[in-house]
């Protein structure tokens, strides 16, 4: 297992360095282009020419010197290249810092994932904990749920201590315990193999390259419109440099993405192999993948997350160099044809299915032995699936702060959070129900978030003993009467606690 991580790390380093070279080259080229353009546009650069180089007469292109020699001699280009490379590095560092510091929460909130505790979904929680033990992770990852009918899951976490696993509610509804275990094992495999960290790093690299190229190409359009007249004859070398830079700026993001995708696909196979080893039951993951593959194509929100998900939702059957995930059918075939649950068996199945070789690192293979498969469980009772769907529905209601009212005719009325009406009518029998006051607090999402952050305790000192109005820190007007004697009250809007101090007290 450790060897798998080691070889992953080595490969990742090579990849990051390659991307770094692309990034810095791009920065340097852009810098040189800008520098050269500035150099030919302002005459003062003629004074800074080094005497060792023959001064290039303005307006005439040097016949005996190559383009690059001219550029090398152009201090504007040289200084520009240096600054450009530095700026590229700075952009990368900035994005990297962001990803390391807040990457997990950004990704999770982008997917609209909600954190759950054990009481919310005991089975999911147990499965995650079981796989944590099987993988020997030092700590159990946080568990998140996404309210989405699509079947998917992903893992994030720059460090294993901050790792998190997120699954969609559709996945919870449709998969049985063993299949869920397979999917979670795959995600835990990503965490264990340090994929989540690597993918974050690589995504940031790609992001920096795309950003730089985009800014340059856009800026170029802008400048080109404004100062077409400023290009003079002496800029022939600069013009060629400009052309090279444009080509590079178009190609660099593509190259970076290709590198990223190829690495991502490889890691999917490795996570599958890890999942088989953790669960000793590859057939469960295969069957989960089959269910996931049959689902409808989901929404756009997954675009940023695509490489992290268990199955890429955006590939419409079209796979190859441009996909983050290997074809799901191929993964299923490999898992189904495994002789036992060890890495060696996965490697063999991989070779047989794809005709390619070396998926698992050689040192891992040397250390691994046969791992016996688990017996398939008896087929689940049909009632189980329906019950699971109800449980997941109830879980989502709890997590999403829905108000649920049971009508006497058997209908369950669900009110979304923030719904401020005081009574509802049952659509079937027409009975009206009062929305319980405590639950109809009209909790908007923002107030909920504020409540979770636990607002600082507020104090209100009573002026006298009569009716008094004041405002909560959230702006909600509150009123207390002469009969009010409690030591504190709760704001109905933000939920914050306000201490009420009698007039004479210290």
């Amino acid at each position, binding site marked *: 297992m450790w060897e798998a991580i080691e070889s992953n790390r080595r490969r990742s380093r090579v990849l990051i360095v390659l991307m770094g070279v692309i990034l810095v080259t791009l920065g340097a080229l852009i810098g040189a282009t800008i520098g050269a353009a500035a150099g030919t546009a302002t005459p003062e650069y003629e004074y800074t020419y080094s005497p060792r180089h023959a001064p290039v007469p303005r307006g005439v292109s040097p016949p005996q010197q190559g383009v690059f020699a001219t550029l090398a001699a152009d201090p504007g280009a040289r200084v520009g290249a240096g600054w450009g490379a530095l700026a590229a590095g700075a952009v990368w560092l900035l994005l990297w810092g962001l990803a390391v510091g807040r990457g997990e929460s950004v990704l999770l909130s982008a997917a609209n994932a909600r954190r759950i505790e054990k009481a919310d979904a005991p089975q999911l929680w147990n499965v995650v904990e079981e796989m944590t033990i099987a993988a020997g992770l030092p700590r159990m990852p946080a568990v998140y749920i996404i309210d989405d009918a699509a079947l998917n899951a992903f893992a994030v976490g720059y460090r294993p201590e901050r790792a998190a696993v997120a699954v969609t509610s559709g996945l919870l509804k449709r998969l049985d315990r063993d299949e869920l275990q397979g999917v979670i094992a795959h995600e835990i495999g990503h965490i264990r193999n340090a994929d989540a960290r690597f993918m974050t790093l690589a995504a940031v690299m790609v992001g920096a390259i795309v950003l730089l190229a985009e800014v340059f190409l856009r800026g170029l359009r802008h400048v080109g419109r404004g100062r077409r007249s400023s290009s003079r004859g002496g800029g022939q070398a600069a013009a060629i440099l400009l052309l090279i830079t444009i080509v590079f700026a178009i190609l660099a993001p593509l190259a970076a993405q290709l590198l990223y995708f190829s690495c991502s696909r490889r890691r999917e196979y490795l996570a599958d192999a890890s999942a088989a080893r953790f669960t000793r039951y590859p057939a469960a993951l295969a069957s989960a993948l089959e269910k996931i593959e049959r689902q409808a194509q989901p929404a756009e929100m997954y675009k940023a997350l695509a490489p992290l998900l268990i199955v890429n939702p955006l590939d419409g059957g079209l796979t190859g160099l441009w996909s983050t995930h290997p074809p799901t059918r191929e993964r299923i075939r490999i898992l189904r044809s495994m002789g036992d649950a060890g890495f060696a068996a996965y490697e063999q199945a991989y070779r047989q299915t794809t005709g390619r070789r070396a998926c698992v690192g050689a040192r891992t293979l040397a*250390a691994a032995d046969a791992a016996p498969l688990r017996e398939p469980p008896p087929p689940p009772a049909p009632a189980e699936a329906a019950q699971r769907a109800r449980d997941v529905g109830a879980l989502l209601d709890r997590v999403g702060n829905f108000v649920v009212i049971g009508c006497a005719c058997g209908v369950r009325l669900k009110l979304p959070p923030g719904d401020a009406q005081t009574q509802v009518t049952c659509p079937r029998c027409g009975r009206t129900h009062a929305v319980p006051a405590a639950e109809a607090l009209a909790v908007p999402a923002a107030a909920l978030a504020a409540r979770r952050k636990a607002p600082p305790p507020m104090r209100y000192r009573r002026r006298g003993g009569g009716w008094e109005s004041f405002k909560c820190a959230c702006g909600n007007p509150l009123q207390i009467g002469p009969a009010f004697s409690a030591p504190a009250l709760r704001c109905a809007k933000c939920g914050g606690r306000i201490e009420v101090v009698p007039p004479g007290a210290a």
Partner: protein
Amino acid sequence: MTSVGIALLIVLGLVVVVLLWVVGVYNGLVRLRNQVKNAWAQIDVQLKRRHDLIPNLVETVKGYVGHERGTLEAVVAARTRAVSAQGLEQQVKAEGELSQALGRLLMLVESYPDLKANQNFLALQEELSSTENRIGFARQHYNDSVMTYNTRIQTFPPNVIAGMFGFHELPFFEVDSAAERQAPQVKF
């Protein structure tokens, strides 16, 4: 510089490289051995978890299976033996018996539909089956760690260093009964 000096420098360099390598391998072995120890501790944690669950289970089931006390008492007795077991061999045996007693109890539950509809029991059932899984996965992880460690100290060249510093092969976790050897799976 004389040729003797250069030769000395080269030898010194080689010695430094070898020393660094030895340190690296030694640290790697220590890390693997700690991983094994950790995995072993994890098995104990999960066994303890199972012991803690049983009183709860017995309490829930008691009201429903009144006239088949024998099975219930067998579980309680097996738990007591497992908790107080001394030494590895005895512990493995006691835990195996506990697993079997639990299996019989849960088989018995099949014939009590009321019990199977009890929310409290359903929650316990998930906890219990998860605990069985955890014990199985903890053992599996222990064996995986032992295998990695043993392979490392048997292969050349780390075996030289393992021999020098007294790293010995560690035993696998073997389960005696055929029922226990099967994958952890409590189905209800």
